[in-house]
């Protein structure tokens, strides 16, 4: 949205980029994130400056990162997907079952299977939302319960344990390349590709247009249904990917895997400055929001804040970011009005 701010033609490109960064909504959460990491590190240097601390700082957010990216793409079209936690659970269970059946299965096959399972769920969500033109909140809420129920029915009290996963897959959960965990690298590639697409590609920009005003988008002739369907498929596929991540990291899968994580993904998106009614926000923002949310949960015990207050802190953060968004939007409106009056 910062591109709407009037810029003087005499400015060099460098100054313009700097101005964009300084005015961006994402900067606020980056500052909070850096502050939390600094505080926690000042108290316990091992929070970042130890092999485990460094790895966890980067690794722990990876699951929520991919979920938040998927959720962001759906939210920007003025929709929401609450079924991603259940999708993650199903994907994780499928991954476990594949390894139980054949421990030598290639990691690539497992990733493909997890993503495919998620994409199918996303496609069902997308079809229901676009064909029947019903609110996605209701459809995906229903889907969340249906899938969780089906999973619990299928899995029962069975549980996939560490002994069921082959060593090479378990190792993937903590494997690092140049100290950067592999799962984090995959998550960052997802952030970069989806972020670039939404920022530059025609299809990506159309998602914003649909979210800003769905009716106008249709009148204008945008393929709204197709785009929204695509957003749900992507979101589901990323939830499936998160399911593979979950099994690699926790080396377990059961009927409760991924429960309640959908709300964390929505929280990450909101904290990251994506408007819940669509049309504005960035993938980078959602990614930083996810990073912040996970890091806060890791840092609060170290800062001596009781774990029972941790939920409250996250809640305040959500409310704070909404208020910040509102204040910024009012200020921007004033500035634009002034600019128009002076013209």
């Amino acid at each position, binding site marked *: 949205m910062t591109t709407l701010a009037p810029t003087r033609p005499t400015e060099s490109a460098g100054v313009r980029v700097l101005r964009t960064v300084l005015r961006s909504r994402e900067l606020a959460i980056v500052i909070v994130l850096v502050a939390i990491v600094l505080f926690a590190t000042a108290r316990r240097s091992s929070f970042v400056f130890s092999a485990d601390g460094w790895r*966890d700082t980067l690794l722990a957010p990876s699951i929520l990162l991919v979920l938040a990216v998927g959720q962001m793409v759906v939210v920007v079209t003025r929709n929401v997907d609450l079924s991603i936690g259940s999708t993650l659970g199903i994907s994780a269970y499928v991954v476990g079952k594949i390894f139980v059946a054949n421990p030598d299965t290639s990691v690539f096959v497992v990733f493909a299977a997890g993503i495919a399972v998620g994409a199918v769920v996303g496609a069902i969500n997308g079809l229901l939302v676009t064909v029947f033109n019903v609110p996605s909140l209701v459809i995906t809420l229903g889907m969340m319960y249906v899938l969780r129920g089906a999973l619990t029915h299928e899995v029962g009290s069975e549980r996939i344990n560490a002994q069921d996963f082959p060593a090479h897959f378990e190792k993937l959960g903590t494997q690092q390349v140049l100290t950067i965990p592999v799962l984090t690298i995959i998550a960052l590639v997802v952030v970069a590709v989806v972020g670039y697409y939404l920022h530059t590609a025609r299809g990506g920009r159309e998602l914003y247009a649909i979210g800003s005003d769905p009716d106008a988008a249709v009148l204008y002739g945008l393929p709204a249904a197709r785009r929204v369907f695509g957003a749900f498929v992507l979101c589901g596929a990323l939830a499936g990917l998160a399911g593979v991540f979950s099994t690699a990291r926790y080396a377990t899968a059961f009927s409760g895997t991924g429960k309640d994580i959908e709300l964390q993904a929505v929280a990450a998106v909101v904290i990251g400055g994506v408007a819940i009614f669509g049309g504005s926000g960035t993938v980078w923002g959602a990614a930083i929001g996810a990073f912040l949310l996970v890091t806060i949960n890791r840092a609060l015990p170290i800062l001596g804040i009781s774990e029972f207050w941790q939920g409250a802190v996250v809640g305040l953060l959500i409310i704070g970011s909404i208020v910040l968004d509102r204040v910024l939007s009012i200020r921007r409106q004033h500035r634009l009005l002034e600019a128009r009056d002076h013209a």
Partner: protein
Amino acid sequence: MRINTKRFAAGAALALVASVGLAACGSDDGGSGDGDGTTVTFLPKNLGNPYFETSDAGGEKAVKEFGGVYDEVGPDTAGPDAQVSYIDTAAAQGVNVLVVSANDPDALCDSLNAAREAGTKVVTFDSDTNPECRDLFINQATAEGIAKVQVDMIAEQIGDSGEIAILSAAANATNQNAWIELMEAELEASHPDIELVATVYGDDDDQTSFDKTAALLADHPNLKGIISPTTVGISAAARYLSTSDAKGKVALTGLGTPNQMRDYVKDGTVTEFALWNPEDLGFLSAYAGKALADGDITGEEGDTFSAGDLGEFTVGADGTVLLGDPFRYNADNIDDFNF
């Protein structure tokens, strides 16, 4: 053939009333004959928990042994009132015995008592409710015994001195809290050089337990050991430790199942952990329920009943039956078990 409709209707009505009455009698003492058809429903804290999978399998074995009808129902995650609807349904179905592991000591009381008034015998196992809400509690081990075995194991593993922490289940979990209190007392009484520096709650969720373990290690650089008195917690903590620099330096013990812990015992992350045999626990619970339903016992202190291969058991104070002592699992014996 001409039928006197009035007389027929009256006769039919009489027969109907009589059959309802007889049926009611039948269901009252249906279990007291050969025990055939005693309906036993297991309601664990949540499905998807390998511990309850095993205990309920033990229950099923017992129910088959005495020729009853077994069923298992439950919520997919543990929550204080998640079990209420399942209790109400079981009561409406008129099951003879309901075997429950309670998520909360108070929240289930109204439903359980309503079920008992309707004629269902309520046996709690693993986690008790208030004594007035059930007929019998099958105690897996005394709280003292469980607390002591865990403190003994951690003391042996860290050389009886240093900082330790506890990774528990939910903050309001009945038995975990009782054990933690007793472990604290035991530490203070017998292990003055061991300092308990933190108690954190993983909510029996892998991700939360995992993150709490990481936080414990970061927050307490001198930590020498972790006790996790919950099967989900100990396996998550073991997974984290096995991939961390603290592997082999920070001891981990507590209550776990052999299948969950096998890899971590073999790779040296965990030396020894404990548990009773959950299968025996479910088995005993089913037999206790059967004895209640048959009217052989009423749950009074001193009542004795037989539980198949497990032998004779005596009801103790507060309607409690004790299974026995906790069992220690380590590299030498873990492969003898599969649950």
